[in-house]
């Protein structure tokens, strides 16, 4: 434990947790070093590429630019959070279906950002998708497949919602 470490308590993927964090750690270091979660990974380190995306109180943030100590009292979600009902969610299924990745390094960030996009805008145009995901980089350049995957995920979610409505 280094000088000035602080104990923080927060909710991580639905579970109440606590951790000792040095004040200069960022959220990615906290998730990797204390919880063994490697879905959020630091790539550009400047908030530009989206590989380190995590959700804090439901809002997408760049984990590389977010001080871990400030996660105290918040609700943190990562790509490791299981979908409701277990298994993969619509976005993950659509990414697989469309082959929307090659090496997969950027995929957790794209999955989380695509979910947020569809939460805010269930029926995005191609322009909306490009605009919302402009802060996520895929060095394998699977952008056309990613855009198709988001469109497919939007359709899958609508189908799911329609089925849920019928059951109600």
């Amino acid at each position, binding site marked *: 434990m280094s000088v000035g470490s602080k104990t923080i308590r927060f909710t991580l993927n639905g579970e109440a947790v606590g951790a000792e964090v040095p004040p*200069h750690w960022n959220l990615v270091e906290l998730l990797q070093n204390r919880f063994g979660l490697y879905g959020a990974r630091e790539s550009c380190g400047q*908030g530009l590429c989206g590989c380190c995306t995590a959700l804090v109180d439901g809002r*997408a943030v760049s984990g590389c630019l977010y001080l871990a100590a400030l996660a105290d009292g918040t609700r943190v979600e990562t790509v490791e959070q299981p979908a409701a009902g277990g298994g993969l969610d619509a976005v993950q299924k659509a990414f697989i279906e469309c082959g929307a990745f090659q090496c997969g390094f950027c995929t957790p960030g794209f999955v989380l950002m695509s979910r947020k996009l569809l939460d805010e805008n269930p029926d995005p145009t191609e322009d909306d998708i490009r605009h919302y995901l402009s802060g*996520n980089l895929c060095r394998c350049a699977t952008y056309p497949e990613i855009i198709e995957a988001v469109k497919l995920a939007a359709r899958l979610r609508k189908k799911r919602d329609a089925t849920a409505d019928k059951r109600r």
Partner: protein
Amino acid sequence: MIPFELVEPRTLREAASLLASGDPAVRPLAGGTAVMLMMKMGVLRPARLVSLRAVERRCSEIREADGELRLGAMVTLSALERSPIVKNLAPVIVRASRTLSNVRVRNVATVGGHLAHADPHMDLPPVLIALGASVTTVDPEGGRTIPLETLYAGYLETALRSNELIAEVSVPVQGVRRAAYLKCTTRSADDWPALGVAVVLDTEGDAVREARIVVSAATDTPTRLSAAEEALRGARADEKILRRAGEAAAAAANVVGDEHGSAAYKRELLRVYLARAVKQALASKG
């Protein structure tokens, strides 16, 4: 990054007191996106960071008062982008916010931090200066009001003292004024701009009564372009007048080059973008 102490005062005044020593190794932290970058680059090596996250709730409020739009310093850029109040009172701010950095940075970065950072590539300073905004500050004894136009002293430098924090931004409502903000990014859509131009016009019929024009990213500080404003005053903004305004702006502005473009290139961008911004403002409903 090197270790530092992190403190979280409950009020802005208390935060200002914690900064009162004048020690450059003690710095405020709002959203932290710029501070984190500077620490990672080793440009900023703080011994202590004073987080503003836990200060008064009203610092995160957007409201209307005395014919002005009031933005708390801790309002996030995404709150600005989504606010019906901002959309109603100053729609140009909402339009400019949508192309500002990316979704994740907007979710965390704050209005106060954005203005106090004083990087000339930031998008809102030119827009807010063109609208005639001012900032209210808090220091250990009291505070003051500073027109945003006079806040910037140089590259990454402001007129704020080390124990002085922006509390609120007051923006005269846009009303019938027509406004536009255009920027040119030379690499990717969400890159830092090579040039930004904000234009706010008072119009009468198809003539410009008064113009406020501000350039950013191409100069060390966001700068009013009075020669270009003069060229537009009382005129119909036809191609000839726009060319004259663009020439006047390019001649008067102290344009500097950086990794986004050379000074000569940016001067050319200024000529072109100024005319485009005026046209867009005239074509807009607000």
